C-alpha cells in the first residue's frame, strides 16, 4: 500500500494513451474542436508557405496596380501602393502567430512560476496575488498601450508588453490548481518519504496543474493575437513597414470608400484564427475537465 501511494495517479491507471489517441477522443467528443484545429493548422501552413502561395513580394510597390479590386491577378485586391493584399495577409499571419506563440510562452512561464510560489506559501501568496490583482485592474489593451509607449515600437516589445499583461491570468489559474492539489494524499506521501519541497512542486504538483494551464494558454494565444492586432491598428505596436493584420486594416481605413477590401480580408483572417483558438480552448476544457462542461 505504501508503495502504491508513492505513485502518481497517472502511473496507477496503467498504460497511457498516445497524444494522437487523446486528440482523436477530444475531437470525437466535440466535432467543432476539429474545425478549430483544422483552421489553425491552415493558418500555420499558410504563414510558413507564404512565398509559395503568393508570387508577390508583400512590400513590392507597383503604382500602376494601385487600389485594384479583388480579381484574377490579385485575389484579395491591392492597396494604395499597389501591394498585393493576399501576400501581405499571408506574411501578416507569420507575425500574428509568432507574437501569439511568444506571448503565450512568456505569460505561461511567468504565470507558472508566480502561481507555484503563491500556492506553496501563504505569505508569498498574499503579496504575489495582491500584485496580480493590481495588474489585472487595468484594461488589457490600455496597459499594453502604456507599456508600448514606454518601451517603443518593436516586435520584441509587443511580446513583452502583452506577456506582462496576461501573466496574472495564468498565475491565478496555477495558484487555484496548486491549492487544490497540494492537499491531496499523494503530495503528503511524497513529502513523507522525504522529497524536497521544490521536487514535490515540480514533479508532483505542477504535472497535475497542467490541464487548466493548457486551456488557459490556448485562450491567451487568442487574446494575444487580438491584442497585437489592436496595437498595430493604433500604430503603437509593430513598426509600420512590417506587414501585420492590424497594420493592414489601419492602412485601409483611409481608403474605406474606394477600397474596403484592404481592411476586410486581414480582419477575416483575425476572426478565423481567434475563433479557431477559442474553439480549441473550449474543446480542451471540455475534454480535460468534464466538471466545467457547462461553464
Amino acid at each position, binding site marked *: 500500500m505504501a508503495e502504491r501511494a508513492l505513485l502518481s495517479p497517472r502511473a496507477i491507471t496503467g498504460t497511457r494513451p498516445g497524444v494522437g489517441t487523446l486528440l482523436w477522443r477530444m475531437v470525437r467528443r466535440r466535432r467543432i474542436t476539429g474545425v478549430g484545429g483544422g483552421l489553425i493548422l491552415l493558418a500555420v501552413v499558410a504563414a510558413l508557405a507564404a512565398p509559395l502561395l503568393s508570387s508577390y513580394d508583400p512590400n513590392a510597390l507597383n503604382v500602376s496596380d494601385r487600389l485594384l479590386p479583388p480579381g484574377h491577378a490579385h485575389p484579395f485586391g491591392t492597396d494604395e501602393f499597389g501591394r498585393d493584399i493576399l501576400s501581405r495577409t499571408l506574411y501578416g499571419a507569420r507575425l500574428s502567430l509568432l507574437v501569439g506563440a511568444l506571448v503565450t510562452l512568456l505569460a505561461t512561464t511567468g504565470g507558472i512560476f508566480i502561481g507555484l510560489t503563491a500556492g506553496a506559501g501563504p505569505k508569498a501568496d498574499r503579496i504575489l496575488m495582491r500584485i496580480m490583482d493590481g495588474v489585472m*485592474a487595468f484594461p488589457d489593451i490600455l496597459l499594453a498601450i502604456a507599456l*508600448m509607449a514606454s518601451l517603443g515600437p518593436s516586435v520584441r516589445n509587443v511580446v513583452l508588453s502583452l506577456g506582462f499583461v496576461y501573466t496574472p491570468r495564468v498565475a491565478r489559474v496555477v495558484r487555484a490548481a496548486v491549492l487544490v492539489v497540494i492537499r491531496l494524499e499523494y503530495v503528503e506521501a511524497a513529502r513523507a518519504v522525504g522529497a524536497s519541497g521544490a521536487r514535490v512542486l515540480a514533479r508532483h504538483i505542477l504535472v497535475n496543474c497542467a490541464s487548466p494551464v493548457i486551456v488557459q494558454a490556448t485562450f491567451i494565444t487568442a487574446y494575444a493575437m487580438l491584442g497585437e492586432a489592436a496595437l498595430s*491598428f*493604433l500604430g503603437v505596436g509593430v513598426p509600420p513597414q512590417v506587414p501585420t493584420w492590424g497594420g493592414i486594416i489601419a492602412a485601409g481605413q483611409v481608403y474605406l470608400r474606394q477600397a474596403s477590401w484592404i481592411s*476586410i480580408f486581414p480582419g477575416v483572417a*483575425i476572426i478565423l484564427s481567434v*475563433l479557431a483558438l477559442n474553439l480549441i480552448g473550449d474543446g480542451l476544457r471540455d475534454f480535460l475537465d468534464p466538471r466545467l462542461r*457547462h461553464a
Partner: protein
Amino acid sequence: MLSYLTGRVVSLVPVLFVVAVVVFLLIHVTPGDPARVLLGQDATPEQVQNLRHEMGLDRPLGVQFILWLGRAFHGDLGISLFQRIPVTADIIQHAGPTVTLSLMAITVSLLIGIPAGVVSAVFRNSWLDQGSLALAMLGAAVPSFWLGLSLIVVFAVNLGWLPSSGYRTPGEGFGLSLHYLILPALALGLPNSSLIIRFTRSSLLDVIGNDYIRTARAKGVSERGVIFHHALRNALVPILTVVGLTFAALMGGAVVTETVFSLPGVGQLVVSSVLRRDYPVIQGVILMVATVYVMINLAVDLLYFLVDPRVKY
C-alpha cells in the same frame, strides 16, 4: 454587513497601491533617461539636467514615488507636455465621449446578451440555442475596430444612413448625439455581448434545474412566469459580475473604437499622447481608468445586496 463593507473597502487599498506603483514605474522602464526622452534629441545637457531636477528625477526612486503619489491623491497628475495644461483638466475635457460611448455600448451588450442568453437556455439544444452560442463565439473573435470599419462601410458608405465619424454632445441635441453614437456603440457593444450571452445561459440553466422551479411549474405558473419571475431573478446575481467584467473590457475597447470613429474621447487622448510621447497624460489616464474599474467592481459587489436579499456577509 458593515464589517464586510469595511473589509471590502480595505482590500482595495493594496490593489490601488499596486496600480499606482505600476503607473509610476511606467516612465522609468523607458530605455534611457526620461528627461532626455521628454526633451528630445536636440536638448543640451544643461536643459536635461534642469528638467531632471524639476521632475525630481535626481532623488531616490522611493522619494519620487511618495511625492508623486501624494500629488496624485490630491488630483494633481502633472502637466501635459504637449497641451501645457494640467493632466486632470485634459482628461476631464475628453471624458464626455468616453463615458457616453461606454454607457451606450454596455446597453447594447445587455440588450443583446441577456435576451440571447435567456432564449438559449429556455430552448436548450434547439437551433435558437446553437445560433446564440454561435453569435457568442463570433463576438469573442471579432476585433471591435474591424467591426467598426465594416459597419462604416455598410451603414455610412453604402447606405448613407448614419455618419461615419465625429461626435456631437448630448447638449447639442440628444437625438443628434445618438445618431453619431449608434455605430460606435454597436461596434463596441456587439463583441462584448458574448460573455454576457454565455453567462446568462449557464446561470439560467443552473437555476432551472432547481426544485423550486419544478414546484412553480407544478402549481401551474405559466412558463413565462416561471422564467421571468422565478428563474431569471435568481440567475441575475452571477450575471452582474460579468457585467462588471464586461464594463472593464469596454473601457479598454473604447480606446480603439474612438480611434475608428474619431471620437474626441480619453482613448484618442491616450493614443495621440503615445505618439507624442506625452508620458504624464498616459500615466494619468491609465491611473484614472484603473481606479474607475476597481470602483465599478466594488459597486457590483454592493449591488448584490439589492438583487439578492439572501446575500449576507
